């Protein structure tokens, strides 16, 4: 990417806008914002090439707090707006900030289409399993039975597994992380940046007002080690306070085994492979079994040409075949006649 500003090393300050952050005290959004602001300075292009696009929701206020180009759109449409930005100027580094409602309910279609196209856009999906901004209705990731403003007797909609949906749509990079694991979150943001094409990062995010603690099992010190397994390419799935447990495949079915009691060793465990889409789907569906730890990390990272690169290629090809367009000739078309 062309460097158009003198790049004195950037810092977190360069990415903090002058607007007061207006999220509730204790909201997980603060951490997500901070991690992004921390990682962006590392990226190797001028600040003016960053663009953040969002829809509507608490999470969608994200662009206002980043001192980069930003557009706070309408509910659910961020992936489509972002697609226009990216296609108009493929040099831009385009990020989408969205919520489980914005990105998966009203905006689900734009999301899956953007992912299948492999448009070079990075998605941060703030999943708090609730509609925050509208004060607490269930979202498509809310849990069965959850009592919310619109479900006094509990949710009856089985939730999407966002990772699974993205895989089904053909996404090339799919990952999951958490607001309360800053290092890991930062790493996922880096992975997104460095990916060619669409990157879909689901972030477990605590809504301290309407769904407090939804992810505490995975995010809090006491329980995290026993309930989260970190995915690393080429590494076995080991977890537990003392790395004493692992995930093993029984057929296609993952199961937890102890690698401390001698029956199984680390060599028996499932080894993660980011290039294997099927494995990613198995990992995504571990969610159905409460006995299994929740995988965090990059589920899959595949290489495929980006949509914008193919569009640019077609234009180049047309030009090499027919030359740069001549407007006067175009207006004249194939058949003209002259009246004197």
């Amino acid at each position, binding site marked *: 990417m062309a460097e158009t500003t003198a790049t004195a090393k950037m810092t977190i300050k360069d990415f903090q806008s002058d607007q007061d952050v207006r999220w509730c005290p204790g909201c997980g959004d603060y951490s997500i914002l901070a991690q992004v602001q921390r990682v962006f300075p590392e990226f190797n292009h001028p600040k*003016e090439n960053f663009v953040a696009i969002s829809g509507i929701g608490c999470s969608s206020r994200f662009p*206002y707090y980043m001192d980069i180009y930003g557009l706070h759109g309408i509910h659910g449409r961020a992936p489509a*707006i972002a697609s226009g*930005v990216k296609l*108009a100027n493929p040099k831009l580094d385009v990020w989408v900030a969205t919520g489980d409602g914005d990105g998966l309910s009203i905006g689900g279609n734009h999301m899956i*289409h953007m992912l299948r196209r492999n448009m070079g856009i990075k998605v941060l999906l703030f999943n708090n399993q609730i509609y925050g901004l509208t004060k607490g209705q269930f979202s498509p990731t809310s849990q069965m039975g959850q009592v919310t403003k619109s479900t006094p007797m509990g949710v009856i909609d089985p939730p999407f597994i966002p990772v699974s949906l993205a895989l089904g749509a053909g996404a090339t990079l799919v990952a999951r992380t958490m607001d309360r694991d800053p290092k890991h979150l930062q790493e996922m943001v880096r992975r997104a940046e460095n990916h060619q094409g669409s990157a879909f990062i689901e972030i477990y995010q605590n809504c301290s007002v309407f769904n407090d603690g939804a992810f505490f099992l995975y995010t809090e010190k006491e329980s995290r080690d026993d309930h989260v397994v970190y995915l690393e390419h080429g590494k076995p799935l080991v977890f537990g306070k003392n790395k004493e447990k692992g995930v093993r495949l029984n057929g296609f079915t993952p199961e937890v085994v102890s690698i401390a009691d001698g029956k199984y060793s680390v060599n028996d465990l499932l080894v993660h492979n980011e290039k294997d889409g099927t494995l990613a789907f198995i990992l995504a569906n571990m969610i159905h079994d409460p006995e299994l730890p929740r995988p965090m990390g990059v589920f899959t990272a595949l290489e495929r040409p980006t949509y914008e690169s193919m569009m640019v290629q077609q234009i180049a090809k047309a030009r090499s075949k027919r030359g740069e367009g001549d407007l006067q000739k175009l207006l004249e078309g194939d058949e003209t006649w002259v009246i004197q």
Partner: protein
Amino acid sequence: MAKQLKTLEEVTIRFAGDSGDGMQLTGTQFTNTVAALGADLATFPDYPAEIRAPAGTKYGVSGFQIKFGSTDILTPGDTCDVLVAMNPAALVTNVKILRDGGTIIVNEDAFNDKNLKLANLSTNPLEDGSLARFNVHRVAITKMTAGALADMNLSTRMVDKTKNFFALGLMYWMYNRPIDGSVKFIQEKFGKKDAEIAEANVRVLKAGYNYGDTTEVFTTRYDVKAAHLPPGTYRNIMGNVAAALGLIAAAKKANLELFLGSYPITPASDILHELSKFKEFGVKTFQAEDEIAAITSAIGASYAGALAATTTSGPGLALKTEAMGLAVILELPLVIINVQRGGPSTGLPTKTEQADLLQAVVGRNGEAPMCVISASTPADCFEVAYEAARLAVKFMTPVIALTDGYLGNGAEPWRIPKVSDLKDIPVTFASDPKTFQPYARDPKTLARPWAIPGTPGLEHRIGGLEKADITGNISYDPDNHHVMIKKRAAKIDGIANDIPDQKIEGEPQGDLLVLGWGSTYGAIKSAVDAARADGLKVSHAHLRYIHPFPKNLGEIFGRFTHVLIPEINNGQLITLIRAKYLIPAIGFNMIKGLPLRAEEIESKIEGILGGKTNG
């Protein structure tokens, strides 16, 4: 046998057949040939919503009407002089618009029991006397076509598919037009893939032509001289193509890349198809997953500095409603071309109508004013698309350009403009971080600056929440909201200072002003011309600019006793006119999915003025 050659001033021909019979192709070929000889013309393709409804049925009939002449041709004709009917269904569904004494050319081979039944006919119209007042020519088109190809070893289906060229050839002969244009076309279209098919089509075309020449049935040929059009280089152009070219031209003149976000919908899809062809102009066409993504991707592209457009028809415009509001508050340039069709809902998707006007002008949540302009003829779609782009970037606003199915698919000769003569479209992107304020306004146009990502130092955020004047930060301040609503409205109203005064065709004052907009131009002009010829004091004003109206419009009304507003809707422009100018304008509304008929407008005019003298 020596044949007579008669010169006609104008003639209207309608080709009609099954959807699979290639009537649209036949019509287009005839049009191009006629156009190239310098006649003025207007066309009206009229086809069903089904792709290829079962052969022989009435609802499967596809028609193509062309009027051409050495005179000023304003409409494709209320009635036609010649009807070419490829089967019984085509005959019965179209004969009503043939003038008394008109000519019918039928493919008599198609008048078998099966086809008569499919057309719900109990008797054969060729034999039951029902066509007595016409001049009927029974031609064995199918048989002669087969004959021409007898030695070629083609399937019956293949042979059958060429028979439209027989009709075309015959019409070329009858109207004294050369066949070479169509020969060339056939060779280009089929020649590469299948030389045999090309050969067959050319043979049949010639067979039709020669049939006219040799048969004794036709004793007269007709000649239509070139029209007295202003000097220049001409081409024949369809409205949708013209709109596409208008956008490309505007982008070029503005020195911007053109981005189109669109989703296919009849009758607007051809603009997408056209634009997707011209990638060497750097045109980016994005066929989105739906209309909402189409417009929002265009908003994104506009934010990033492209000349962004989205094209659609009624139901698609409805879906874009929310996003149009976003474009209004973001104050980004955006061209929205809406090719109107019959509604409500899916309505009559392949038919024409003017019933999206109020939706375009006021159909959004909140106070979301935007500029609305409209095209009046197929070629005018070029001007209107171009003007929409010019206004959009000058005033930093979405602009809706309304055309309709009749304009989009209709064609007429177009005097090709010189690129250098096109209005300039100057664009300056903001670049100075010291003075930049996202919602500071140009004092003259009230436009805010266009500051695109990638510009160092101008990082800023915009969005759909109400914004503080000048800074553009989120603001919930009550007074600011009022101010911003008024400013957004004032900006759009101010466009009136940038557009020409409304012109009048005819005297500047009189008993009646007929006010129109959009595709009714030709029909109204014909009607008004006729009424004026009858001595009535009628003039015609045709609006291009609907929101805002031209500044002098109110003053014009003051000079006429009556104002008549014909529309292909239930009274939409009239609502805006009455609300704004408080004049008792009279409506004339025919909502039949068809262009208005000049005749009907004329009798309405007579009704009003006659009524007056009697009253």
